[in-house]
């Protein structure tokens, strides 16, 4: 009997990781390699008047904007961020120059002896600041993106509503904190630029470097080194490092290694966008939600980065798992003089789901009805329309998933026994429901990425997968090999996957947006089917497939109308928490989770993603605090920014309940990001439940709970006559 594809196999990258022989970027030593450190702005916003460097010893160099052969702008969605500051700096830590040389201690000394004269400009730190009173950082309105989304008729919903409920939610920064910090090594030989790096998106880096150098695309080669975690943090930032390092390599005519120190990485690289979300919902006498009017503000930091797309994902997720026919959403990504906010597992959706789930819970409490029942009564089902009017084509298993997770967690029984306790330690339960749209938002896959995957088979009938998607710990290599091996019906040992090198692999797109399995996996599957059809033993052959937008779907990017995603994965999480009513410290007693990911390609990798995502989510909801005061992060060393340790984690029990997706490989959909979205919400709800208070921001901290418990119960609820 043939094995089910979900049965775990040994990953190809495990042996070298266990032996400690895997080659991360820090392990790569090129001959004659020089080191670079970054001279950074110490002002949040200022004009650079002069920079006085100490005399450079022999073999030490300054590399700055004058050394960029092409454009001193990082190629991204909006052209606003330079590799090296021109005459203005916009955040503390913004790179001004590199100092390059053989000895890192000498480089550090040279940096500390450099004097920069600034002329301060009034900075903008908060998304509330009225930019009229100061000069905007970007454009006229100081927003990198301002969008509106409309579905149905909100004024009619308002008119018909019996109840109106309005809430405001806030979420904080979160740092990816991949254990391996960011780094690249650049070398330039005979007109060809090669970058090795800890990266998620080889072709993003390539396209950026091509523009930075102003050279032909075939003169740039990007090779991914074994990557020690990324979680979105190595999506766009490596382009900046790569451009800087290659400019340095050209200048000094030697390979240049640019690795960030931990604290430096923490302070200057991208983080999850802080958000403020206002939701007003209109509800009829039968407790059906007629409409929702929402406003989303994201703190984008000093440059545009990916904020526009993060904002879109947040806006499209704002109705959560609920069927709301009339919707109006306004979204803005606001410029502030702080490090650039960027991609982090979930990409705007954790913020939106936190807001809508907490809001639904709160509405029910105001209406004095059972929150879970109210939420279940308003839930999406097959055939309903999304916020952008796209149709949920596949069966939605939420009711079954909720029933199962309640059974697993012994929900009803616990709920009863937790009630009415006046012990010092109170228990509480929270349940979150969520989805994640798989692949790029909107027209990304169809119009921008247009991914290609290739398989080549050699005379020994070994098949190699050529894609630009990286293994960064999540198990992409094994997933792809399993798909090819099953589609070709050959042993997995005959299928190879190597870290991508842009000189060898086609552009299958970046390793982001939970797209690797569902989108690239399908390309690889289709290529395998093509190869199988023409298979000739002992002959070198290849097959290449380009992405086709699935039939029957449609999307208009101007009006944000249609199918924002072609597939959705779903999840339900329960968290059980115990809170001490004197110290307000909380302990997570258990987490239970059910996910619909279409089909598991490897149960072991799936479990790894689920456990890891849930714990990162708990960190986000419960303990990871990063505050910015006056443009400076308070938590800027690894000792100050606290992530979960083995001590903090509870027992996690998870199961799958899957509705296969016909367009996915073997029915699979996305998983990576989904796994993070639900746990912070279920945690916050559990704390609410334990203490009988309202929580409207994460991370939930003991000091905050103490404060809330004291001046509780602000009533935003109005009953119409």
């Amino acid at each position, binding site marked *: 009997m043939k094995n089910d594809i979900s049965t*775990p196999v*040994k*990953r190809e*990258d*495990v042996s*070298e*990781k*266990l*032996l*400690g*022989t*895997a080659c*991360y970027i*820090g*392990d790569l030593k090129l001959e004659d390699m020089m080191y670079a450190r970054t001279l950074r702005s110490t002002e949040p916003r200022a004009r650079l008047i002069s920079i006085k460097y100490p005399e450079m010893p022999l073999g030490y160099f300054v590399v700055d904007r004058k050394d960029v052969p092409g454009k001193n702008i990082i190629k991204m969605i909006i052209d606003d961020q330079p590799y090296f500051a021109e005459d203005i700096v916009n955040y503390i830590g913004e790179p001004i120059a590199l100092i390059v040389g053989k000895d890192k201690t000498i480089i550090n000394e040279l940096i500390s002896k450099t004097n920069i004269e600034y002329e301060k400009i009034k900075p903008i730190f908060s998304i509330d600041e009225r930019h009229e009173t100061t000069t905007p950082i970007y454009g006229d309105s100081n927003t990198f993106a301002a969008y509106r989304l409309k579905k149905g008729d909100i004024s009619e919903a308002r008119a018909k509503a019996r109840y109106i409920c309005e809430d405001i939610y806030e979420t904080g920064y979160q740092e*990816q*904190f*991949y*254990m*391996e*910090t960011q780094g690249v090594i650049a070398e330039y030989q005979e007109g060809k630029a090669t970058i090795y790096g800890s990266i998620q998106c080889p072709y993003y880096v390539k396209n950026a470097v091509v523009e930075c150098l102003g050279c032909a695309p075939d003169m740039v080669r990007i090779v991914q080194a*074994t*990557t*020690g*975690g*990324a*979680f979105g943090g190595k999506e766009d930032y490596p382009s900046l490092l790569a451009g800087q390092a290659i400019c340095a390599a050209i200048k000094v005519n030697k390979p240049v290694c640019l690795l960030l*120190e*931990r*604290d430096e990485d923490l302070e200057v690289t991208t983080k999850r966008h802080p958000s403020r979300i206002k939701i007003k919902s209109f509800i009829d006498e039968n407790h059906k939600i007629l409409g929702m009017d929402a406003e989303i503000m994201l703190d984008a930091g000093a440059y545009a980065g990916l904020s526009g797309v993060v904002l879109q994902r947040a806006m499209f997720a704002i109705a959560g798992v609920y069927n709301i026919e009339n919707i109006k959403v306004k979204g803005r990504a606001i410029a502030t003089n702080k490090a650039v906010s960027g991609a982090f597992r979930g990409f705007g959706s954790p913020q939106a789901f936190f807001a809508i789930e907490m809001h639904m819970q709160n509405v029910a409490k105001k209406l004095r009805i059972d929150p879970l029942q109210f939420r279940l009564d308003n839930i999406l089902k097959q055939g309903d329309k999304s916020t952008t009017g796209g149709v949920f084509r596949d069966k939605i298993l939420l009711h079954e998933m909720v029933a199962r997770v309640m059974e697993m967690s012994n929900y009803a029984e616990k709920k009863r026994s937790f009630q009415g306790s006046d012990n010092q330690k109170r228990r509480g339960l929270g349940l979150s429901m969520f989805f994640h749209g798989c692949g790029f938002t909107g027209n990304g896959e169809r119009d921008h990425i247009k991914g290609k995957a290739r398989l080549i088979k050699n005379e020994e009938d070994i098949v190699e997968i050529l894609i630009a998607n990286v293994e*960064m*710990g*999540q*198990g992409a290599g094994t997933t792809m090999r399993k798909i090819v091996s099953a589609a070709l019906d050959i042993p997995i040992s005959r299928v190879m996957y190597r870290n991508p090198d842009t000189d060898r692999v086609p552009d299958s797109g970046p390793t982001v947006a939970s797209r690797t399995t569902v989108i690239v996996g399908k390309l690889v599957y289709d290529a395998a089917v093509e190869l199988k059809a023409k298979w000739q033993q002992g002959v070198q052959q290849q097959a290449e497939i380009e992405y086709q937008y699935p039939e029957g779907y449609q999307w208009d990017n101007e009006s944000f109308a249609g199918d924002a995603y072609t597939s959705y994965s779903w999840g339900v999480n329960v968290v059980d928490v115990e809170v001490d009513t004197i110290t307000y410290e909380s302990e997570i007693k258990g987490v239970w989770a059910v996910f619909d990911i279409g089909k598991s390609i490897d149960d*072991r*990798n799936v*479990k*790894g993603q689920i*456990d*890891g*995502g*849930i*714990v*990162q989510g708990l960190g986000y909801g419960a303990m990871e605090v990063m505050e910015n005061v006056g443009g400076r992060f308070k938590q800027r*060393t*690894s*000792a100050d920014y606290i*992530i*979960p*340790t*083995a*001590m903090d*984690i509870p027992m*996690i029990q998870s199961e799958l309940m899957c509705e296969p997706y016909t367009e996915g490989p073997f029915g699979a959909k996305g998983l990576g990001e989904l796994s993070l979205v639900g746990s912070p919400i279920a945690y916050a709800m559990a704390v609410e439940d334990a203490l009988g208070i309202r929580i409207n921001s994460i991370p939930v901290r003991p000091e905050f709970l103490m404060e809330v418990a004291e001046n509780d119960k602000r009533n935003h609820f109005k009953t119409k006559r």
Partner: protein
Amino acid sequence: MKINFSINNSAKSIEINPSETLYEVLNKCGFSSVKKACGTSSCGICTVLLDGKPIPSCSYLAAKVDQHNITTIEGVQQEAELLGDLMNREGAVQCGFCTPGFLLTIIAMKKELVNPDIQQIKNYLVGNLCRCTGYEGQLRAIRRYMEVGR
């Protein structure tokens, strides 16, 4: 200055700079299995064993290992293979950056603690951070590993 120590049971005598950390010295000697992340003893990535006990090599002066035994993952291959296999089965090896440090800490724990309960295990591991796995896989693997040879 010169120090004499043993690394993975082979004697070594090397010239060091008194301000150098053990991590720097090991790195120079080519022990690339020892990684560094924070450099401030707050993550456990750079863990090596000093006379069998885990220490953060990034913040340990090399001068202090004179006359002591240092063990890296290269020196406990048999044990690492056994434990590594269990870790792999539980999906506890993802990006792998924390893996050598984790393996060494667990191997030391098995020698040091007799029949630890889950809380003691977690306590022992508190200095080793992992951002990928949520520790669940590691803990499952450890429970199996502690059974081996009992």
